[in-house]
């Protein structure tokens, strides 16, 4: 055992941070996206005087509280872990990027206050719109906290707004630090993919009920509404994804090059799909799209794309990010296919969106969307290795040197296991006990 096992706090810090983030982003995504759908449903319900939509908002909100609870506690965990596991990094970050971190807690505060009010004031106001208005700060707060925390992450990918000399940070401009070139595409991508994923998750719930034979208007309305929203966000994702690629080509060419196994700087660069990398950096079994990479990077088939040869090998990201990226794009392709098929069926005169295979696909889309988010983050984070602050601080320099990180890893793994299982059980029990039919019947009386 002792031969295989060596204690290295850097490795364990990285593992523990990835574990916490991987678990947290599931709930964070739901936290950002679902309030929008709750708000839209309640708004439609009030406008059309349609109780189905009001009930949708109510039931989503009830489940949402459970996911928020897990989101809050894991968010607190990652917030503290940043200082516990990456003390040297946070020391530098405190000087340069504390402002958006601080503003994130305000956004979170704002959201927490109004969510509490919203949940506990159904039926308390004579005017239904007042209650709806309470949700606006929740949507804004959750969106803003995603915005600010993504700004911090963008800064880590492309730090700006200060001068760095001999290990010291000077001339800090906090506003400029927030406006990293990585910021616009990252923020747009994070928000949009959260809205898309939540649309698909809520659609999957409706599709699942329909598949199980609960054919009532409530689920039908839910399915149509969420899938149409998802379709809109899907289109937005395509545009933003393209922007992200162009950002990489301009500002983080080494990440793009590692992703696409583009070893030598060249014009007319091809895009590599799939494939297996050999020891000598040649690629086997890949599908090559001529000019693909040049088009992706600069919208010009003749454009020159910087290759890994421009960077010292110790600054390369692990080359397996290519596999992660391809898997992510594969998952995205599946999502595009599912949403488009659904919309075509919906728009076609003779279309039938309640076919069993289509419903099954919609159910499958939810976990696929979540997996895409996980893959996207793994790609983004591993792709900037070996840096924790690109060009300034290596990940290994930022990590703690304390003992017992390995033990903490085990403890947190157990914690997330318990939280995940319990949250799922509580959610399932909650909706099994309160059937839609019963609640609808209650209303009709």
């Amino acid at each position: 055992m002792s031969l295989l096992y060596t204690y290295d706090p850097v490795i364990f810090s990285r593992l523990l941070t990835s574990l916490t983030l991987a678990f947290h982003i599931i709930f964070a995504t739901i936290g950002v996206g679902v309030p929008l759908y709750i708000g839209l449903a309640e708004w439609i319900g009030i406008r059309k005087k349609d109780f189905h939509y009001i009930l949708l908002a109510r039931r989503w909100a009830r489940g949402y509280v459970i996911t928020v609870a897990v989101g809050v506690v894991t968010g607190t965990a990652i917030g503290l872990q940043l200082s516990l596991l990456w003390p040297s990094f946070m020391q530098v970050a405190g000087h340069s990027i504390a402002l958006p971190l601080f503003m994130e807690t305000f956004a979170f505060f704002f959201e927490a206050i109004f969510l509490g009010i919203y949940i506990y004031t159904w039926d308390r106001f004579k005017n239904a719109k007042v209650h709806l208005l309470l949700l606006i700060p929740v949507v804004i707060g959750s969106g803003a906290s995603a915005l600010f925390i993504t700004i911090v992450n963008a800064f880590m990918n492309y730090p700006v707004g200060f001068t760095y000399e001999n290990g010291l940070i000077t001339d800090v401009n906090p506003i400029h630090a927030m406006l990293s070139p990585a910021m616009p595409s990252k923020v747009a991508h994070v928000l949009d993919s959260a809205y898309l994923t939540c649309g698909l998750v809520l659609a999957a719930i409706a599709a699942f009920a329909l598949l199980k034979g609960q054919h009532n208007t409530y689920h039908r309305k839910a399915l149509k509404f969420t899938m149409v929203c998802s379709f809109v966000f899907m289109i937005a994702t395509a545009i933003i994804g393209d922007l992200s690629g162009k950002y990489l080509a301009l500002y983080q060419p080494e990440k793009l090059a590692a992703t696409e196994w583009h070893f030598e700087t060249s014009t007319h660069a091809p895009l590599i799909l799939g494939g297996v990398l050999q020891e000598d950096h040649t690629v086997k079994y890949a599908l090559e799209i001529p000019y693909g990479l040049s088009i992706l990077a600069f919208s010009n088939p003749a454009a020159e794309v910087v290759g890994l040869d421009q960077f010292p090998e110790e600054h390369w990201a692990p080359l397996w990010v290519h596999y992660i990226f391809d898997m992510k794009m594969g998952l995205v392709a599946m999502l595009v296919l599912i949403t488009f098929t659904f919309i075509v069926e919906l728009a076609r005169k003779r279309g039938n969106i309640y076919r069993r295979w289509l419903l099954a696909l919609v159910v499958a889309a939810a976990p696929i969307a979540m997996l895409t988010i996980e893959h996207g983050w793994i790609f983004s984070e591993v792709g900037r290795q070996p840096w924790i602050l690109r060009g300034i601080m290596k990940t290994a320099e930022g990590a703690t040197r304390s003992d017992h990180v390995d033990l903490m890893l085990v403890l947190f793994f157990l914690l997330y296991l318990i939280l995940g299982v319990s949250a799922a059980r509580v959610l399932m029990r909650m909706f099994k006990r309160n059937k839609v039919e019963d609640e609808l019947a209650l209303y009709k009386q």
Partner: protein
Amino acid sequence: MISYELIGISVLWLFLYGYLIVASIDFGSGFFAFYARLTKQDHLINRLISRYLSPVWEITNVFLVFFFVGIVGFFPDTAYYYGSALLVPGSIAIILLAIRGSFYAFENYGSKDNIVYLFLYGASGLLIPASLSVALTLSEGGFIIANGESVNLDYMALFTSPLSWMIVILAIVSVLFISGTFLAFYASRAEDAPALRLMRKFALFWSTPTIIAALTAFIYLSQHNERHYQNMMDLWWLLALSVSFFMLAMWLLYKGRRYGLAFISVMLQFFCAFFAYGIGHYPYILDPYISIQSGATHESMGVALVAAFIGGLCLLIPSIILVFKLFLFNVDYVKGKK
């Protein structure tokens, strides 16, 4: 012109005080709920507790997040020293907070009446203040081994120090005292006589250990950190005020009237003591590694943080007032009619 780092630390200290009060109410009520279940008195107070806590538990949590993000922002060196040294107690606190927060939500919004949840909820309520108070102990100095590359907590020194144990005990008993007084006040607003009787008993019971623990911790502090002790002695009038507020609260609780005023006195009692402690700590955040001046962030960042803080407060204060109006001071809601 007051310096930005002084504004920063004052604001953060104020927020830590805010957390101390709201979290104490939360942590203590968890223990009371569990204890009441064990002694079959839960029908008396559980509804009261959950009516208050449900809309605000998330807000309580944010106070803590706010504090630790703020202190890293204003004083980045704290991330390095406290972050390195507190890995184990900090992680334990996170795990307990996570279990507590999520299981509170599971129990309250999901499946009711699970005794295991209630036990986790009650037990963690006492362990969290204990694990968090390690940070306070640490700040006194003498519990950190810093050599060149690494900073580690000196567990031997920590576990054998009477001061650190006294701070833990003080944290736990004050949690129960603050929470008991608040719930007595809340019960009186709800005009819930049986709950009020029970909570008044709890509040009175925990008052004595609180004041004894406070005095004992003070004596141990004089042995551990002479400078801090002397500074606090210079602020004797603040400590005297604190004791007077304590006496006032005791008197009101004993007489069984004006529970609102009693709770305010308890808040002021802790306010005076907490600020005497904090001001006496000046200029160190971590004795002797981080002082307020040497550890502060760049001026531009400090000014930006203060600006963000003012902007944020403009949003927060009206929102918190709204929460108070809707839940805390809305008699119909408190009584359970809404």
